[in-house]
């Protein structure tokens, strides 16, 4: 039991830091403690959150996926173009986009595994490819006027005083599914084993190739889903969606205590990472006085402080066992 606790330490620390951050912000800014702010953390970070789910699993396996932002961007404009300019039904367009995202991911995974190429480079190529294709489809954003979109924007689930919009709900469900895949399926555990030591995973008879291809496909799928949710969020498709998203997603995953070299991590950590990231953004907006450059420096400093704090806490508690 103690060993269990020790292994979960980074996770607990992250959770504690989020709680502290949120409470501190609530005390400082009037109106911060509201269900709206909390739900907005999900709504406003749905695109980021969905990519982070796939990214978490990829990082579990010791890989990295830089293409997610571009895939989201491609999906966004792809869906909008299909619906608006070719009259395709949104459901069909969405399904096609998800299929493309998954297929691209699988392709990258296959190259990474069978040709033993660094994930960083191959997914970088994927990023250039998809971004180029996105702009090739259209350099401008396209508004989506399909009635289904208008209806989707109005979907709210009321839980007492809290109204949960569709976008937030999708993210929540996505996170749960991601957690289930990562922690209660063979596939998820194989990924962790793979990230912990690929040679060992192979010798232990795990399906290394299939897992790798699978996880990149999943990540591509998540990124496409993120692009779709982005079109719901804005009611339009934009080829510039998700520029720089990959770095944010990596940051979220790492803040959540998942180790970039693979083999160690937890989806719940990603949830906390996402919440911390969102809270920092909210605080900046509630403050609203910082000049943009100081805000950037502040984000950097906060990120640093956060990582050091996490480290310090884990070490201190680890010693005091």
């Amino acid at each position, binding site marked *: *039991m*103690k*060993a*269990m606790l*020790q*292994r979960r330490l980074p996770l607990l620390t992250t959770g504690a830091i989020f709680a502290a951050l949120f409470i501190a912000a609530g005390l400082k800014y009037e109106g911060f403690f509201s269900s709206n702010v909390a739900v907005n953390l999900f709504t406003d970070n749905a695109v980021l959150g969905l990519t982070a789910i796939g990214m978490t699993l990829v990082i579990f396996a010791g890989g990295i996926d830089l293409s997610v932002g571009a895939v989201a961007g491609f999906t966004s404009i792809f869906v909008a173009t299909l619906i608006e300019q070719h009259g395709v039904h949104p459901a069909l367009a969405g399904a096609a986009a998800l299929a493309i995202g998954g297929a691209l991911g699988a392709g990258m995974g296959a190259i990474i595994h069978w040709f033993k190429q660094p994930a960083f480079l191959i997914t970088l190529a994927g990023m250039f490819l998809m971004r180029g294709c996105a702009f090739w489809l259209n350099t401008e954003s396209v508004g989506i006027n399909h009635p289904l979109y208008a209806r989707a924007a109005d979907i709210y689930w009321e839980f007492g005083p809290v109204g949960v919009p569709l976008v937030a709900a999708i993210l929540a469900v996505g996170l749960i599914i991601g957690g*289930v895949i990562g922690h*209660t*399926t*063979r*596939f998820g*555990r*194989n990924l*962790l*084993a793979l*990230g*912990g*030591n690929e*040679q*060992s*995973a*192979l*010798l*232990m*008879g*795990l*399906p*290394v190739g299939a897992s790798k291809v699978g996880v990149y496909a999943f990540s591509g799928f998540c990124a496409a889903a993120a692009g779709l949710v982005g079109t719901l969020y804005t009611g339009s498709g934009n080829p510039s969606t998700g520029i720089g998203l990959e770095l944010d997603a990596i940051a979220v995953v790492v803040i959540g205590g998942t*180790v970039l070299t693979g*083999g*160690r991590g937890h989806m719940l950590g990603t949830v906390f990472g996402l919440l911390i990231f969102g809270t920092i953004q909210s605080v900046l907006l509630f403050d609203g006085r910082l000049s943009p450059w100081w805000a950037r420096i502040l984000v950097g400093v906060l990120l640093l402080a956060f990582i050091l704090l996490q480290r310090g806490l884990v070490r201190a508690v680890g010693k005091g066992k």
Partner: protein
Amino acid sequence: MTAPSPLLTLRGIGKRFPGVVALDGVDFTVRAGEIHALLGENGAGKSTLIKVLTGVYEADAGEIILAGNPLRAKAPADAERAGISTVYQEVNLVPSLSVAENIALGRQPGRFGFLNWRAIRRHARAALARLEIECDVDAELGTLSIALQQMVAIARALDLKARLLILDEPTASLDEKEVADLFAVMRRLRAEGLGIVFVTHFLDQVYAVCDRITVLRNGTLVGEYPIRELPRLALVGKMLGREITATPAAATAATAATGTPLLSARGLSRRGALHALDLDIHRGEVVGLGGLLGSGRTETARLLFGIDPRDGGEIRMKDAACGLRSPRDAVQLGLAFCSEDRKSEGILPNLSVRENLIIALQAKQGGWRTISRAEQERLCAHYIAALRIKTANAEVPIRTLSGGNQQKVLLARWLATQPELIILDEPTRGIDIGAKAEIEALIGKLRADGIAVIFISSEIEEVVRNSTRAVVLRERRHCGEIPGAELTAARLMQTMAGGHVPHE
């Protein structure tokens, strides 16, 4: 014994790596219900044969027949599915996962790909209990000692319902009790009709459990023998391809060392690792560190070498305080440390043998005073010859060498720095008989040259044979010291086990 039908037949297996022919037309047969020893010097091709069998490598030639059907394993998963369970030479588990997960990985109980965590833990506990291992199944594997990790690896292999079990040097880091437990299990499995392949460098163990022996030398088959027809000396002769010369001389009963010690440690301690240890070492002494597994021997060595920070205590060299705080300081002071975990703490896998060999010397000299290429090559040539390191040349990456030969390169790395004190932590682990004798001879020579040696080994005989004095640790404390004159296996064992309270 009735002659059981062959369970596994390998015929004419060939495998070449760039620059080396690792296997050349090797035949190998295992029957159901036997324990079959696969023996040979370092680099003879044992591990390679196993990896070809389980699909890690693709053979260049030959065929494999398992229970009458041709086996074409493309990956270890295929071999497992065919009923072959393997413990590879290097511990091959995932250090960042829990013990329970490591045992269950790839065959976790559960439905539709979803896992049943409770069953996984229960299952792991049962698997460990069968080997009488006590450890928390939720602990992260990487936090366990190598020996425990090895036991977990074995538990994992035994957990599989297999027809053929392969153990590649499983006992290298185990202590006697654990070895005994393992043997008990092996015998039981044999009785159940399993075929077992067992690789080891401990001849005692071969004669304790095995039924038949296959000997490899330089990638070729020497022969297959029933155990009774091949006495020890003949076996060694077959492995080496020559008669071994005189067994190494036992350490001369040492005159008690006097004068200022070369190194003296006082109150050396680190929470959770070592409790206030005093230790003096003189020039020309070989101090054997005795102790059971986990008694704190490696921790002592790590503290002496400045790898872990110490909480308290002082280290003096030649009676002068020295600010020994890091391995770098230690190397500058003339210390050397050959660590027990060569994979993660020893080799630089992708660098060449030459670079691995000179790195410590170069570190000692600092970055500016480079060792000339000619000098580097001279050093390599010297040590490759002196330690009989088997390698295509000095420029191949060290990871392509067999485990034992990697170990020899690491030894050479430290000898090249011409240390005043050398700490050898399990230097003979995974090393063949011939090389073992050479290392023992080397220790004698070092001693004669006035170099101090700290010698850590799980083989009691080895400690007794080579040490001029033994310091015994128990539960991370100094618990006794045995001067050379009184050093016998029985006495050492008694002190280690704690059956006898030493007078101090």
